[in-house]
């Protein structure tokens, strides 16, 4: 088990390095150009050169990257080009927003897809067909469009939920719940559609497994076969699906946040992309990948606990 965790950890570190290196060299720009963007067209050439130097952009690219990496490891992600805020402080305020809706989305995906998938697999017939139709629908409709429809119906027309904005749970727990409900549901829909299919397939296969017949031959009730044996056997593949869903939802959150005007990592990244605020964009990429690595590690450990075979590998 220890070896297993070390191996996963090594993969996680290589993943973080890969993503940040790739992003750094992709978005790297000439220092003069950056300084000109910040200061505007009217700035003098001297001022532009001085700003470029102050930002350390006159050094060779590799040196810039290594110094960014060195600072990043110590928690210093630099300062936004367009404000005096440190990137770290921006990320600290934005990350909880994104994590709220992504974690909610993963939880909802897990609950609904297991329920619907098992229903379709066990009942068959019309239940199965309805789930199939819903699933194609869920995969086909873009989640941000569903989010727009939610805003139109629940916020603009019926005014049940707030249309936009985020309420921190420190301020009001119910306000927080109300502010993330629509985003979470909209975000989870496509994941639910995909995961339901996978749960359904896994349960159908499991119920045809030899050991299920043997369990039945011992007079074990169907309830125990389904909720004890099938669920525990399906847990390991389901966790893998969930970890992929989590990554997908992090990406989906970018667009969903825009619809609901949530001040999360997604809106931050989009604004930084449009303005060319390289340190902020790099920071978002770094923190996103770190979140992915941590979540995957947790899922791997839970997996080792659920699936007795993993510990031996």
């Amino acid at each position, binding site marked *: 088990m220890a070896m297993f965790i070390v191996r996963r950890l090594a993969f996680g570190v*290589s*993943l973080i390095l*890969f*993503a940040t290196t*790739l*992003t750094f060299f*992709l*978005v790297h720009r000439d220092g003069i150009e950056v300084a000109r963007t910040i200061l505007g067209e009217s700035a003098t050439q001297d001022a532009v050169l001085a700003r470029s130097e102050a930002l350390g952009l006159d050094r060779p690219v590799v040196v810039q990257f290594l110094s960014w990496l060195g600072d990043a490891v110590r928690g210093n992600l630099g300062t936004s080009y367009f404000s005096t805020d440190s990137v770290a402080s921006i990320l600290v305020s934005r990350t909880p927003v994104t994590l709220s809706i992504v974690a909610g989305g993963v939880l909802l995906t897990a609950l609904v897809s297991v329920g619907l998938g098992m229903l379709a697999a066990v009942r068959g017939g019309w239940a199965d067909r309805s789930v199939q139709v819903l699933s*194609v*629908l869920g*995969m*086909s*409709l*873009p*989640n*941000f*469009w569903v989010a*727009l*429809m939610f*805003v139109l119906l629940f916020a*603009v027309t019926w005014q049940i939920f707030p249309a936009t904005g985020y309420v921190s749970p420190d301020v009001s727990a119910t306000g927080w719940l109300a502010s993330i409900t629509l985003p979470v549901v909209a975000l989870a829909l496509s994941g639910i559609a995909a995961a339901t299919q996978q749960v359904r397939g896994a349960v159908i296969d499991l*119920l*045809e*497994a*030899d*050991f299920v*017949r*043997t369990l*039945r*031959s*011992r*007079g*074990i*009730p169907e309830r*125990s076969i389904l909720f004890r*044996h099938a669920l*525990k056997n399906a*847990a390991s593949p389901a966790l893998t699906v969930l970890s992929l869903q989590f990554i997908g939802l992090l*990406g*989906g959150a*970018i*667009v969903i946040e*825009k*619809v609901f005007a949530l001040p999360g990592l997604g809106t931050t990244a*989009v604004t*930084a*992309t*449009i303005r060319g605020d*390289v340190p902020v*964009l790099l920071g978002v*990429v770094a923190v*996103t*990948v770190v979140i*992915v*690595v941590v979540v*995957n590690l947790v899922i791997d450990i839970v997996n080792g606990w659920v*699936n*007795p*075979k993993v510990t*031996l590998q």
Partner: protein
Amino acid sequence: MPVAAPAPGPVRRSLFGLLVRNPLALTGLVVLVVLVLVAIFAGVLAPSDPIQPNLRMRNAPPGTPGAPLGGDGAGRDILSRLMYGTRLTLTGAALAILVAAVVGVPAGLVAGYRGRLFDAVASWVADVLLSVPGKVILLAVIAAFGPSVLITMSAFGVILSPHLYRLVRTQTIGVKNELYVDAATVAGLSDVRIVARHILSVVRAPIIIQSAILAGIAVIVQSGLEFLGLGDPSQVTWGSMLGNAFAVIYQAPTAMIWPGVAIGVTVASLVLLGNGLRDAVQGSTTAPRRPRRVRPTAASHAAASAASATGPDAASEALLDVRGLRVGYPRPDGDTTVVVDGVDLRLRRGEVLGLVGESGSGKTQTAFAVLGLLPRGGEVLGGSVVVNGEDIAGLSPAARRQLLRTTLAYVPQEPMSNLDPAFRVGQQLVEPLRVRGMARTAAKAKALDLLAEVGIPDPRRTFDSYPHQISGGMAQRVLIAGAISADPVLLIADEPTTALDVTVQAEVLSLLRRLQRERDMGVLLVTHNLGVVADICDTVAVMRSGRVVETAPVAELFANPQHEYTRALLDASLDDTEPRPALVPREHGAPDPRDAAGDRPSGPAAPDAPQPSTSRSVR
């Protein structure tokens, strides 16, 4: 479970045929073709200019003359913009899939075919790409190269490529080990030709299916980026239309509906195409391999009813009384494949009845029918199964479970796949005991006793082990312990030694014999091994093509087999016999010259002809 690679020929030949015959896939394809036509002829079809604003049309409601779906915030015709938007949507998706295929397919072929270092590196890169949130990386690409659809979607193609890479790699590894690829290698074909001819043809269908699904994802991602304002501002796109409509949500709420419907219809057509194609391909290549089809005949019905008519008094003392049992599986074309066709079996307490026959003769299906545990789709079409005086057809599921908890038990063929891999051995023994109402500690003690009784040297250790930690022989002993834990009077053992090593086979067989004698159980032993029959059985029923052709005490059957097929079986399996004659042909119809021709009824059931006998029943 290993999935057999589909044979290359049929898939290649009929991929388009399958597609057209599947209604879902066909619908998807038709919609897609319409969309492509709209994209090509948008200039002709669109009623208005998509870019020229018309101030009088600003936020016009649907149904306005000249703008059937209304006008947008700048007064441009929504319908025309939708038609033009098809162009970039389809181009972007096609580009992403093209790049994904160009990167992923060759890499998957090489990794799967060659393996080694390339495989290790490529698989690592694929894992990395799958673990990074793709949209975040796309933002970096847009920041670097500006809002160009072509560059963004090419980059997205690279992000999607691991899906195709993994698919192709897995399939290639599967095909590489097929014998016909070995043969091609031996025949001196170059690697390139082998890959092109034998491997690409197999992976083609899965690639197309996966590509359709990925194209749907590409459409959604592209429109999402355009909605965020990260698309090409000079182009008409569905995503940017949604963004514009969102800005005027209070003035013209319906304007948000149309681009979403367009995206939904496009993605749905791709998903349906992919799903339909997958169903069609899987349906044609992994159809369940059932025992071959046996046509029910009038003769067999007659035989079944005749058998049912003989002596009801015989039934009263029988532990197991099977009469005229017929089992079938419905087929997609509405017909039924009959796998057990009028089987009669009788078994007394303390008797061991061997049920022998070759693969596909219906012996295991008979055993499952007796247990009431036929695989999905299987059903008892006729006849009766009476266990210990109770007709199981009339029992509720609960009563049937009760029967399994007290009277009837099952020992399976494949020990490793018949233990639940997620639970410890002990838990699997304790659960049935607990279900029967035993207290936790008593159940644990009994489980340990049972493990000792079936000859497991260290019961406590095995109790705490997971199935993958014990050997096949041990696992079979555990399963036997589970079977006898109910103190059954009737044990159904389905090829209990087939999957074991030869030395272990003998041990397990002698264990079964000992338990049978000590507990005076009736045992129905399904096997194809006549050595096992000779070793343990009192009586033998020989099955062929879903019917019992001969039933006799074991010594008599070996000494003087009456039925042609029994003789053929004996000749084929005994080591000290004369050179063997060919096995009796399995197909009914053409009379075999060695058959005693005189006294059998006409019709296709000929080889099952009854032959006169006094001491036994031969049908």
